[in-house]
């Protein structure tokens, strides 16, 4: 590795230094835009006692859900757990600590963490279980609760393209939490579908500047679809037209 070149040779190297009881922030929404291979590497390493920050926890056999059976996750901070039976079981049984966090608050906690803002006030969750134990302040006659920022020992991120300096471009709704997670890791590890030469990405089109990225690796992805919904093809339309 030299200068700003962030490319590492292996997934083992990508997650070197990840140890038990660390906090990991992960990008992705459902199974869309998740760092699949980095998750597999965490499973392979067997790292335990992790606090995971992610919107969802994947499904039973894919995404972050694969870390549940081996009890690698101690605590998860997430907004939605609906489609994951093992998650729900561990949560109900009190085997897994869960901090349900509203989706927008979760995104803002990452953004704030990465931007050096320790906490912020939001109206989201006022008067609900989310507000329990949190400071309430009134601004212009409306109540807001104080939410604290999040920083991870590691952030694991999936992007579409990158140059070797770690400038990132995401694709469609696979962007979701990824750019926010990228800013909020003490060590940010990014896996991408394609690494291109420096200078070949248009600076105006970069979603995440390379300053946030510590390690970069190119992977191959299954990109499993959670809900395959379709409409019938228009019979009059010529394929490819």
């Amino acid at each position, binding site marked *: 590795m030299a200068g700003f070149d962030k490319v590492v040779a292996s997934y083992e190297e990508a997650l070197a230094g990840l140890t038990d009881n660390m906090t990991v922030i992960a990008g992705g*929404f*459902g*199974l*869309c*835009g998740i760092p699949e291979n980095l998750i597999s590497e965490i499973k392979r390493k067997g790292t335990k006692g992790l606090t995971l920050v992610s*919107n969802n926890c994947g499904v039973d056999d894919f995404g972050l859900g694969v870390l549940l059976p081996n009890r690698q996750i101690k605590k998860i901070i*997430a*907004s*939605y*757990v*609906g*489609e994951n039976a093992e998650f*729900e079981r561990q*949560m*109900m049984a009190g085997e897994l600590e869960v901090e*349900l966090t*509203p*989706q*927008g*608050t*979760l*995104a*803002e906690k*990452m*953004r704030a963490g990465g931007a050096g803002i320790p906490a912020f006030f*939001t*109206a*989201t*969750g*006022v*008067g*609900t*279980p*989310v507000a329990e134990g949190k400071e309430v302040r009134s601004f212009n006659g409306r109540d807001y609760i104080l939410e604290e920022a999040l920083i991870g020992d590691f952030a694991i991120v999936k992007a*579409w393209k990158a140059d070797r300096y770690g400038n990132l471009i*995401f*694709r*469609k*709704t*696979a*962007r*979701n*939490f*990824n*750019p*926010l997670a990228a800013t909020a890791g003490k060590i940010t590890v990014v896996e991408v579908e394609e690494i291109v030469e420096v200078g070949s990405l248009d600076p105006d089109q970069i*979603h995440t500047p390379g300053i946030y990225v510590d390690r970069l690796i190119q992977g191959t992805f299954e*990109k*499993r*679809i*959670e*809900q*395959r*919904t*379709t*409409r*019938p*093809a*228009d019979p009059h339309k010529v*394929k490819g037209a």
Partner: protein
Amino acid sequence: MALSREQIAQRVAQELKDGYYVNLGIGIPTLVANYIPQDIEVMLQSENGLLGMGQFPTIDEIDADLINAGKQTVTMVKGASVFDSAESFAMIRGGHVDLTVLGAFEVDANGNIASYMIPGKLIKGMGGAMDLVAGAENIIVTMTHASKHGVSKLLKNCTLPLTGRGCIKKVLTDLAFMEIKDGKFHLLERAPGVSVEEIIQLTEGELVVNGDIAEMKL
């Protein structure tokens, strides 16, 4: 007759206005997209980071990188934009979305809503619902009026953990369209063939019935 899910969606669609940015929740609200009047333009916001959500893809168009908040594969309309989750909730919390439609387990006469968990039974998580109800001025809740056993879901006080406090002003059920103000439900319309008495009987919270209540037009 109580409204079907499709009919609830059809009635909600009548509340859409030209130029509206709209967030549709999972379930019945999603169906509203099928009934957008032809003569108006509406842009659908999906909180996972898409403004300008289109219809479901054909098999050839399926793209794993393009889903809605319900994790269903979707398409984008012309003029769509994509963005990260912080940007998405800036739109929502910042009050830029004109109308939000979402489901609920319970709503009460003070405008409280419960929709994300049933302690000891069901834990789904709030997803973006808490931000949506906190951020939107204009919210329509769609739900069934009562349980299968005839237990009202329109209550004096919600019994389940709240998703939002004092934020719901309009509720459309399979039986009635109601407004919430001054700690009461106000009956605006009834489903075709459903009597006012039936609605009163299945509404636990105080229900104001003012004059003749018109049937919904579908």
